[in-house]
């Protein structure tokens, strides 16, 4: 984003106000550690941006997406979920990173058919194009990205077209990208958005998706350093969910970064996990809620934005 764009008046006023408030507090990404010259600090953001059609989102996502994108540009790695209708609005604001999108919807015959049937209706409405792909995207600072090394796969399972959060309108899946620091430390970063809903059937689908993700991490990143983040839709206090997420962590040897909501109104659904391994040693310098995405009594999404700042060093 440029000063010229601001001068031309192409940026929302709220975004300009946010820019002014935050310019002094922008983080310094990609810092080499003085104590460990081969270590790099990498900031990671995970954010479900609630980027649905405005009548479904019950607000005007087009209005808040530029602000989200501009704020997210301050992080080295950004994991977005639910960017369904507004990926390009986010991407326009992210200047120093390259984005990868998750899987689309056309591989699934049911979704492809639904898309064709819905087209005569959806074509009349801007930013309304269901059904969707995974709705996830990962942006990585150009200085860190290994450009051609990524994987995206759908889970192929869902529960509910009309009830149960309508999860079948999206082909949920995961996206893996690779980072490499200047010192050669490599980390695989996974982004995902799992099945929502509290019903037994939704919990079962969510479990199968988490098992598929664990299998994929074992297959694609065996023994390697990884960061796994996103909207897991796992409520620590929902029977079945806690056991599920503990199983996932134990199976893959993942630690919780500690990123979680700081403000009292959020439910805990989003996580940032990590482990060291072949390729890199990871440790957490700071983690929590990126509270700059909330202001003036309103949030920029219906989820908290989580961040973790990792120290990435070479493997021992």
């Amino acid at each position, binding site marked *: 984003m440029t000063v010229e764009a601001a001068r031309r008046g192409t940026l*929302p006023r*709220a975004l300009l106000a946010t820019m002014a408030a935050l310019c002094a507090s922008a983080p310094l990404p990609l810092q080499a550690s003085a104590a460990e010259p081969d270590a790099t600090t990498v900031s990671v953001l995970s954010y479900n941006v*609630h980027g649905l059609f405005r*009548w479904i*989102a*019950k*607000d*005007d996502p087009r*209005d*808040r997406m530029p*602000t989200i994108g501009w704020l997210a540009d301050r992080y080295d790695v950004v994991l977005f979920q639910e960017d369904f209708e507004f990926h390009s609005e986010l991407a326009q604001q992210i200047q120093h990173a390259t984005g990868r999108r998750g899987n689309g919807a056309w591989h699934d015959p049911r979704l492809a058919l639904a898309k064709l049937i819905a087209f005569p209706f959806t074509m009349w409405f801007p930013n309304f194009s269901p059904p969707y792909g995974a709705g996830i995207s990962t942006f990585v600072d150009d200085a860190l990205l290994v450009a051609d090394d990524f994987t995206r796969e759908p889970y192929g399972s869902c529960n509910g077209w009309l009830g149960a959060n309508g999860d079948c309108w999206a082909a949920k899946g995961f996206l893996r990208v690779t980072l490499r620091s200047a010192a050669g430390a490599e980390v695989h970063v996974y982004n995902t958005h799992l099945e929502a809903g509290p019903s037994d059937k939704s919990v079962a689908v969510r479990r199968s998706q988490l098992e598929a993700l664990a299998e994929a991490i074992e297959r694609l990143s065996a023994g390697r350093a990884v960061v796994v983040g996103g909207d897991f839709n796992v*409520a*620590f*206090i*929902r*029977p079945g969910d*806690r056991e599920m997420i503990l199983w996932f962590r134990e199976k893959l040897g993942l*630690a*919780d970064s*500690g990123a*979680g*909501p*700081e*403000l*009292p*109104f*959020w*439910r*805990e659904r989003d996580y940032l996990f990590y482990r060291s391994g072949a390729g890199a040693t990871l440790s957490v310098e700071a*983690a929590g809620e990126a509270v700059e995405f*909330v*202001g*003036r*009594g*309103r*949030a*920029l*999404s*219906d989820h908290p934005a989580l961040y973790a700042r990792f120290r990435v060093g070479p493997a021992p």
Partner: protein
Amino acid sequence: MIRLATPCGAVVIVVLLAGCSAKPPMGVALRSRSQFEHEWGRYLKMAPSKALAVAGDVTVTHVVGYAHDAPSDEFAAREALAACEQRRGDRRIEGTCRLYAVNEEVVAD
């Protein structure tokens, strides 16, 4: 044809008017229920014997641990505290876990 066109036209007008309605304020309205109220509501639906433990400030950042369907109240309390301690470590919340409720009785000060 006119009988069909009239309701269709009405639907189109309603849809267009809804689309042109006053612009809402930027952002999503924050939840009216707090995270802890939500967790407490979920806990109340669990089967006894059950217990809920808390670390941190429930009006700001906190974690909970719980147990349900336990063979005794004492067992549930121990399990809830252990679960809370694990989550407290994850979230790096200072202070210890304390028992908040056993079954539906709030035991916290």
